[in-house]
């Protein structure tokens, strides 16, 4: 009995050989990292990506299955130098070896930067980066929602700073996973809940520092869109030093760290109390000034009309008795300011009725900045 392929009589079928190659290659080579240059990249409608990795001497066909593409930051560019992690597959119909890639990074930060820039551009096109969109942060929030990990240092920092500044400000944690594959969906869910709840005056969304990979959920385009869509003003607080995240770009305010976010969000209680006290004082002072002025106006009005014109006061009793709008209407200075004129006889008494005028007689017209000598041509009483 000869082994398959050992002699002409036991020659293998091609498919048998392909199966043999497949078994050997796939069975003996563990998943591995490969370094090379991307060429001939093509993303198929099925969602799979195909390209070739090469170096100066060799090349190998590569595939990224659709389910794995979500983990890639962006599609690699032609000529990009990458390191890819995958396992060898044999495509039996052609006995061809290909590398099925599940993880890939560009050398340097090519893919990260590319993904970030692409998403940033889309947000920009949709107007979400427009500075005019940014809402003012409430000056006196009483309830602050914090979208973050309930176990993270970020939350503890925020609580500590907020407590120190004003222990009566309520903090409501909206728990979310802030790193790893499930983070984007979890953050979006938390943002949705806080939007629906509407019980907060302000939302802080963030986490403490970490590697770029740890922070990547805050560069997720859909998370950024959820931040932008939040009906409540937002402060982003992604603890990192240099890089700005997409969430930072769309939030109403960017804080460098969670502690800084709490500082920006919570005013010091003593300052708020002082502000309330100051306002109370302003109201009292303003009202007493207004009352004094009203008294002065009344005295002036009575002097002006004098005993001779008491009739006029009687006729317009409502104006004076109410001490209200009538005071203003009767106060010559204020009325003239508005563009009215007062007619007066030679002796200074006001002429307020058409019957005070006689055709041919002179009188003077007092306007805001002087007097006009005038003469009555004719009078025309209103007919009722």
């Amino acid at each position, binding site marked *: 009995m000869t082994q398959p392929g050992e002699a002409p009589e036991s020659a293998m079928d091609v498919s048998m050989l392909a199966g043999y190659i497949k078994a050997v290659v796939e069975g003996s080579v563990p998943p591995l990292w490969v370094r090379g240059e991307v060429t001939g990249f093509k993303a198929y409608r099925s969602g799979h990506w195909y390209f070739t990795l090469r170096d100066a001497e060799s090349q190998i066909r590569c595939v990224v299955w659709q389910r794995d593409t979500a983990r890639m930051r962006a599609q690699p560019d032609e000529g990009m130098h990458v390191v890819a992690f995958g396992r060898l597959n044999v495509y039996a119909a052609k006995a061809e070896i290909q590398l099925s890639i599940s993880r890939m990074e560009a050398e340097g930060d090519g893919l990260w930067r590319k993904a970030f820039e692409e998403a940033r551009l889309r947000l920009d096109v949709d107007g979400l980066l427009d500075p005019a969109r940014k809402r003012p942060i409430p*000056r006196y929030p*009483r309830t602050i929602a914090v979208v973050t990990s309930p176990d993270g240092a970020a939350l503890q920092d925020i609580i500590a700073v907020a407590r120190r500044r004003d222990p009566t400000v309520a903090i*409501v944690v909206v728990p979310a996973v802030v790193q790893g594959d499930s983070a984007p969906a979890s953050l979006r869910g938390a943002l949705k809940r806080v939007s*629906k709840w509407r019980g907060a005056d302000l939302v802080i969304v963030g986490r403490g520092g970490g590697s770029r990979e740890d922070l990547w959920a805050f560069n997720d385009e859909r998370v950024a869109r959820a931040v932008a869509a939040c009906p409540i003003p937002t402060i982003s607080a992604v603890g990192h030093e240099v890089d700005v995240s997409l969430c930072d770009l769309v939030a109403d305010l960017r804080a460098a760290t969670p502690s800084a976010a709490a500082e920006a969000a919570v005013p010091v209680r003593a300052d708020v109390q002082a502000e309330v006290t100051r*306002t109370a004082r302003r109201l009292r002072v303003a009202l007493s000034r207004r009352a004094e002025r009203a008294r002065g106006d009344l005295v002036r009005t009575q002097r002006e009309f004098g005993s001779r014109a008491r009739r006029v006061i009687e006729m317009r009793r409502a104006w004076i008795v109410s001490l209200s709008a009538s005071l203003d209407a009767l106060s010559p200075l204020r009325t003239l300011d508005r563009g009215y004129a007062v007619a007066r006889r030679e002796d200074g008494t006001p002429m307020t009725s058409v019957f005070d005028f006689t055709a041919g007689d002179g009188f003077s017209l007092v306007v805001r900045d002087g007097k006009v000598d005038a003469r009555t041509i004719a009078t025309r009483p209103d007919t009722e």
Partner: protein
Amino acid sequence: MSFEDDLARLDAIARALEGDRLPLDEALRLFEEGVARLRSAAAALDTAESKVKQLVEEADGTLTVRDTPK
């Protein structure tokens, strides 16, 4: 009406009263509103120290605020 709204309105009222364009009855009306809003703002400030709470989504989709599990 939130604390923030109260303070913003109080500032507007104070400004209006400080200006000299206001008829007296309007000034009195605004002052009374100001006093009411000062009370509400002072009451908001006068709350006890607050505990950290958690926003939780119930099985039926409603949102409730609960004490944080410790």
